[in-house]
Structures are given as structure tokens and as C-alpha cells.
């Protein structure tokens, strides 16, 4: 998929663990893993909003478009 989810980078910047992020965002660790591994087919605006709020960033910091 040309859209990549760069949560790892933001997690490193914020010095936050994946477990803590999933807990604060309100998604299961399994679903966070799906997101991190770019297996997700779609992301809800509510999830994106929560991710941006918790990581204190913009959607563009998490999502990246790359040409195939």
C-alpha cells in the first residue's frame, strides 16, 4: 500500500512505548500492531484524532505517501 503509517518514529520521538500508546488511544495492542505493520486497510478519523492527540502531532507526521 502506498500509504505508510510511521507510528514507530513518533513513538521514539515521544519516548513512549507501544503498550502505553494503545492504552491511551483506546485501541487493542493487536490493532496497534496491525497499524504499525502497515497491514491496516483503513483508519478511522476517531483513531487518527486520538493518535494525534496522544502523540501531540499532525496526521502528516504519522501518515506518509510513497509512490509504488
Amino acid at each position, binding site marked *: 500500500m502506498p500509504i505508510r503509517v510511521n507510528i514507530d518514529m513518533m513513538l521514539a520521538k515521544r519516548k513512549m512505548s507501544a503498550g502505553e500508546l494503545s492504552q491511551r488511544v483506546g*485501541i487493542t495492542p493487536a490493532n496497534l500492531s496491525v497499524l504499525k505493520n502497515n497491514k*491496516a*486497510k*483503513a*483508519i478511522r478519523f476517531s483513531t487518527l484524532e486520538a493518535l494525534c492527540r496522544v502523540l501531540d502531532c499532525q496526521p502528516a507526521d504519522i501518515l506518509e505517501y510513497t509512490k509504488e
Partner: protein
Amino acid sequence: MQWSNNNSLKLSKISLWVFGVCLGIACAAAPWYGLLCKYIFGRTVPTLRYTLIVLFFAIPAYIAVHFLYKLLTNIEKEQVFTDENIRCLRIISWCCFAGAAVFFAGAFKAVSCILLCALAAFIGIILRVIKNVFERAVALQNENDLTI
């Protein structure tokens, strides 16, 4: 709602068992069908033809019963829209077509069989459409599961 759902599944399973038992009895009794007709209705019927039709029909029918049971068991386990269920539906629909073929072959000697042939083929077509719906449902479910 839950109560009704569980009972509906149980009823389906019981119906399937009853159908299987009835088919078994029909198979076992097929060679004596001619005698039965002679004594009850007073007319002779071609026993061998009837026996062959019933026995050849019983093969796809029992395969269909087996896969229907498997389908019901999967639904009971809350695994509804899965690839396995699509496979079950596809096999059941082919069983219906096989049953239709048996009746079609029987129709060369007994014209009334053509009605049963049409009925079995129509059920097969309906099941194919349901299978197609299931395929779309599986795709939708996969997409939904991967929407975070």
C-alpha cells in the same frame, strides 16, 4: 434475540438429522417400494428404476447434508463469513446440480422426474447466489477487521 437464534440453529440441526434419517429409510426401503405400491395402491411400479434413482440421489444428498451440518456448526461457533463456509456452500450447490443430473437421467424413463430435476437445479442456483453474497461478505468483513 439470542434465545431465538440458538433455537433456530438447533431446529435447523434437528431438521437436518430428520432429513438424513428419512433419506436413509428411503434408501433402505427402496427395493421394497414396488411391493408397497402394489399392496397399497394396487399398481405396479418399476422398482429397479426407483431404487437406482433414490440410491444415486442419496450420494450427493448425504454429501450436502454433511456440509450443511458443518456450515451450521461453524455458524454456531460464530464463524459465519469465512472461506470455509464459502467452500461448504459451493459444494452444497454442486451437490444440488448433481442431484438434478440424477433426476434428469431418471426423466428419460419417468417424465415426472423433470420437475424434481428443475427443483434441484433451481435450489442449486439459489445456493450459488448465496455463495456469491458470502464471498462479498467475507471481503467486507476482512476490510472491516483491518479498519482500525
